[in-house]
């Protein structure tokens, strides 16, 4: 179930300067994502999928245009303000999990909570709950190297959820997993969207993965070429 607008991109352009060349990724792109949506973004390599995710997640800024989140501009925030905004509003899930190899699963999940005022016992309670949610309560003290790819991705999902963000950004979350594990992960994301109301934007090359989303956006050369409703 989707609701009011969570993210709105208005006339967003993104250009990079490389040597003497200027590369245009987006030129006056517009996009609206309602709260509770689950959007899959597909497209060929170099189409701007990851750059779109970077802009949505506040780890990159548009060259022109406005990005609003929950009615507030985020493209005008400073680096420090963006860091705080990300910590409170966005959960990231990467293709290669990007867990800290020196920390156990529980410690990895706890990381975002170091940016909050929660005490040790509250953090511990939340970590246990998050790990239980992704079915890894028994693996709390295991290190990433001791876990399979699917388990590591579930730890990454728990980490993304721990601070209860409104938006989850997933960059090829199943790109490094086999089909059945990928389906488990995608089912979990679908559950988070449907049962917990998380807004999810997922970049993927996999049409099967895109089927788990409510809708799919096709991106090519910086423009949305096709909009497809799936569920």
């Amino acid at each position, binding site marked *: 179930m989707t609701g009011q607008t969570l993210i709105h991109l208005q006339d967003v352009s993104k250009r990079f300067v490389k040597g003497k060349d200027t590369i245009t990724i987006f030129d006056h792109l517009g996009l609206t994502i309602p709260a509770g949506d689950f959007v899959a973004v597909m497209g060929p390599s170099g189409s701007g999928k990851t750059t779109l995710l*970077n802009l949505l997640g506040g780890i990159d800024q548009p060259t022109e245009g406005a990005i609003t989140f929950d009615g507030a501009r985020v493209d005008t925030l400073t680096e*420090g303000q963006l*860091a705080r905004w990300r910590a409170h509003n966005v959960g990231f899930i990467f293709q290669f999990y990007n867990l800290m*190899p020196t*920390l156990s699963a529980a*410690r990895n999940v706890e*990381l975002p909570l*170091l940016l909050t005022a929660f005490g040790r016992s509250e953090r511990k309670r939340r970590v246990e709950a998050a790990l239980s949610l992704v079915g890894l309560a028994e693996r709390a003290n295991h290190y990433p190297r001791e876990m399979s790819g699917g388990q590591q991705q579930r730890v990454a999902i728990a980490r993304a959820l721990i601070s209860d963000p409104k938006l989850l950004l997933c960059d090829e979350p199943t790109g490094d997993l086999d089909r059945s594990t990928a389906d488990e992960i995608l089912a979990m994301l679908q559950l988070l969207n449907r049962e917990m109301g998380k807004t999810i934007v997922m970049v993927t090359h996999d049409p099967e993965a895109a089927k788990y989303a409510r809708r799919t956006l096709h991106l090519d050369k910086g423009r949305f070429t096709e909009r497809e409703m799936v569920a």
Partner: protein
Amino acid sequence: MSDLYLLWRNLFRRKLRTFLMMLAIFVAFVIYGVLGSIHYAFQHGVDQAADNRLVVTNKITFIQPLPFAYVSKVAAVKGVKTVTYSSWFGGYYQDARNQIGTFAVDPESYMEVFRDTLRIDPAARDTFIHDRTTMLVGEAIATKYGWKPGDRIPINSNIFTNKADGSHTWELTVAGIAYPKTDSANTSFILFQHENFNESKTFGKDTVGWMTLETDSADLNDKVATAIDDMFANSTAETNTQSEKAFGKAFLAQLGNIALIITLVVGAAFATILMIVGNTMVMAVRERTKEIAVLKTLGFPSWRIWRQVLGESLLLSLLGGVPGLVLAGLLVTVLAKSASSAIPGLALTMPVMGLGLGFMVLLGLITGFLPAWTALRLNIVTALGRL
């Protein structure tokens, strides 16, 4: 979990590398602690010299003697409170390798001038003044050879001949022990009567090695020094009068520029450590570029990551440096026992430890600055390869 826990885990992610860096820092601080203590012991001895004490030596060099007649003339200079005189005897005990700082002195005036440095039992003092065949032994020498008052000890000279029997030996009775009044006072010496020495030596009669005098006030030092040197200008033995501190420094300079040698050795050790640890820290942070980018993505502010990286290099420096200083302290304690006569007052002192801790912090800051700055400036998009 806290930031300190993260810091600790990152520091020890490659245990062997961290251990080797700690070892390098450890060795550097052992070297610093030992050499720094030796330097401090020498320097502190000079610094302990009284402000109102002047030393008068032959202008050519302080090993050239001065006429004995100068003593009374110097005593008559306005502003001079007390004058005493000493001569270098070149003494050793039994074997020429057992050298002892042996001085022929005027007992009464010597003990008066150095009353704030040495504590001497009244009975020993009385014996030393009135019995020409006695000697006053510093505590360090008495302890080393087990001498006690009343012992008759043959002291040899590698310079002078005793005209009584043509030997190089003077039989002297221990009048008493001279104890230090301050921690750094040197008690590795023997004092015996100048009168005895003057009458029994075969050459250099009626001369003294140098004079030590007290002025009425340190403010008069320059005036008194000028008056004395002017008085003997154009004579056969011109004088050079300087403060006891300046004399001490000049004496140390005869041994070589200890400060320069120590600075060069410690400097070389630290320069090497800076390069090794600095380079390794840069590599260590570079290999976790992606992890730093992920932390920033999660919302960790740049300054917090900067603090983490700098904290790592500081902790590394302290973990290597503090045990290094502890070992240096133990080595210095052992060295102080075996070389007390050569380096009196040798100890790992608070100033040396304090400076060492300062060096550790400086080392940590310098080696951590570049990687911390790199982490601070790290662009998430570039680091994650997400273009």
